[in-house]
């Protein structure tokens, strides 16, 4: 029993290291292609772009979001903004109405139907060749749109470009941990971009060619992760997605563990279910690295975290059980373990060294992520918060998402 679990553990560790090495080698191969522009840039042509802002009860953040769009360093006559109130019950509509005086802003109000319905309502009115969405909890950097559009200018085959999302207003441990995670995802997204294998075109200002929706149809409910589903659909149809590392979108992150848990549960649940929906494209050569690397590595991370959590839970349970028995048998005996400390007992199994290597690779990916988004090499102690919070709470939202998937899919099997 123990040996089977060890073999599985070895395989999962090997694959996890493989994924990190894959990213690192991709980085080393392409590092010269990564450019970080500091000031404003000029485009040859400024195509018209529509940005849809769907909002539902965002009275606190919507104002700043819209202001950031108005402050974009992009010709005003080329930028259209759609503000769509998806049946908010707070004062969102009042805030939105204040922007109706702007000639390039159009406001909509509809009954609550979910984010994808708000986006689709906007899509129906889009007349420009490019469009995007900006979540109402995020703010766009003034240079972001121009930088994103420069990607479309240089490559006609690019169908969508997503920006770097930077966590702002991080005030506590939970938010600082997320800040690190966002840095890391800048790195992974950029590498996936090089591999032509991006699996999500996030809500904060991913810009699409309108052709994508004309050809592939509007957004779908997609288990509340419509931004992932559209990326899957694009990959299935060989539509190229890029990541613009120096286009910054600042986003507010959940402030508490509970809110983070809810957000991640939705993401992971959506991720699992989109993968199930698109299972036919997994491990098929014709779908490229997306099918051979991105999706398998997402599946792997779910299995690995689940397995590791199970293993640790079992070991910890066993340890606790023996400690309780020990306490019952001989009383409190804390001294003996300290007294008997000997370097001989330090674990020197190969998995221990591989574990350290894996951690170092993750730390490196966070540092590179920060470098390619902000242009600075630095190490932040927030990394420790990241490891603590994501390794302790992460497995719970993951297992709950798996659990929910099994429950919700049950009736469909009959």
């Amino acid at each position: 029993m123990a040996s089977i679990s060890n073999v599985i553990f070895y395989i999962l560790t090997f694959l996890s290291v493989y994924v990190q090495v894959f990213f690192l080698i991709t980085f080393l191969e392409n590092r010269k292609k990564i450019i970080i522009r500091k000031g404003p840039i000029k485009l040859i042509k400024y195509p018209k772009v529509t940005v849809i802002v769907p909002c539902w009860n965002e009275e606190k953040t919507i104002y700043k979001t819209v202001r950031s769009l108005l402050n974009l360093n992009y010709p005003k006559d080329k930028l259209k903004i759609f503000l769509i109130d998806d049946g908010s019950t707070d004062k969102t509509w009042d805030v939105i109405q204040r922007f109706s005086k702007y000639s390039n802003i159009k406001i909509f109000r509809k009954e609550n139907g979910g984010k994808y319905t708000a986006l689709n309502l906007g899509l129906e009115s889009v007349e420009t060749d490019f469009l995007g969405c900006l979540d109402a909890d995020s703010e766009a950097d003034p240079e972001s749109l121009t930088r994103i559009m420069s990607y479309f200018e240089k490559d006609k085959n690019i169908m969508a470009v997503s920006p770097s999302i930077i966590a702002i207003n991080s005030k506590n441990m939970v938010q600082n941990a997320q800040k690190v995670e966002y840095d890391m995802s800048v790195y992974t997204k950029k590498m996936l971009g090089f591999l032509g294998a991006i699996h999500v075109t996030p809500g904060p200002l991913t810009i699409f060619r309108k052709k994508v929706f004309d050809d592939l149809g509007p957004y779908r409910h997609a288990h509340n992760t419509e931004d992932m589903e559209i990326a899957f659909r694009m990959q299935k149809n060989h539509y190229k997605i890029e990541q613009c590392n120096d286009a910054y979108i600042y986003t507010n992150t959940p402030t508490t563990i509970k809110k983070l848990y809810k957000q991640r549960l939705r993401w992971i649940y959506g991720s699992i279910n989109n993968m199930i929906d698109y299972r036919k494209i997994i491990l098929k050569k014709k779908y490229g690295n997306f099918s051979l690397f991105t999706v398998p590595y997402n599946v792997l991370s779910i299995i690995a975290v689940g397995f590791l959590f199970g293993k640790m839970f079992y070991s910890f349970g066993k340890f606790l059980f023996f400690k309780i028995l020990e306490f019952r048998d001989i009383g409190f005996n804390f001294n003996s373990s300290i007294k008997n400390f000997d370097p001989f007992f330090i674990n020197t199994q190969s998995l221990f060294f591989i574990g350290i290597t894996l951690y170092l690779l993750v730390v490196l990916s966070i540092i590179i992520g920060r470098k390619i988004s902000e242009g600075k090499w630095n190490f932040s102690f927030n990394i420790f918060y990241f490891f603590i919070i994501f390794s302790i709470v992460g497995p719970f939202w993951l297992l709950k998402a798996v659990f929910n998937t099994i429950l919700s899919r049950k009736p469909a099997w009959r």
Partner: protein
Amino acid sequence: MDTNHIDWKKYLIVFLFTMTLFLSASYVSNYFSNKKVDQLKLIQDKISIDILSSETQFSLLSELSCKNISDSVFSGELSELGNKLEWGQQNLGTTDTVSYLKKYYSLLEIKDYLLNKKISERCQTKSAFILYFYTTALNCSECERESVALSALRDKYPELRVYSFDYNVDLSAVKAMIQIYKIQDTKLPALVVDDNVLTGFHGIDELETIVKQSFKLQEIKPVDTIKSIKTTTNKAL
């Protein structure tokens, strides 16, 4: 479009690179394991010399005086080696070498036991002996509990010597002891105190009473012998 371009060479290179990382980790791990095995061998050699020297010393001096008999091997050192071997068997890759060392260790334990028993009998030093049989082959949770209880007891009574034997160790001397005390693998952990066999888990309080009893027996023994001598002489008279 080049979105579905797959660079197979890269997949292979990454595989080889990952493999190299694993092999390097395994090499480093082996290096430390060998160091640890060397350390074990060193401790074992030292203990072996100590025992041999004590035996020789005992043979030389037994006729004369008990005062000059030094403690043969510090029981702590022997048990430390035992712990390290046990840990090594579970955590070091080189199980063959470790199990060989374990056999040797069991032999040293028996020698230490016999020697100290002799010394204690002849010189009436305060001491108690527990032979403890456990198993690592089966998942014996009671053995783990018993080990903890015994080390706690040993911390409390330095005169107590606990000799642990793996039931499954492939050594004729241990097998002989198993036969002598009729230890069964289904009734592990088993303890032998003053020729009494106790099977199953025994808590620290229970063991403490037994150990104290064992100390008392020693105190009584010389008196008993005097008494018995007296009675025999009286009878003779």
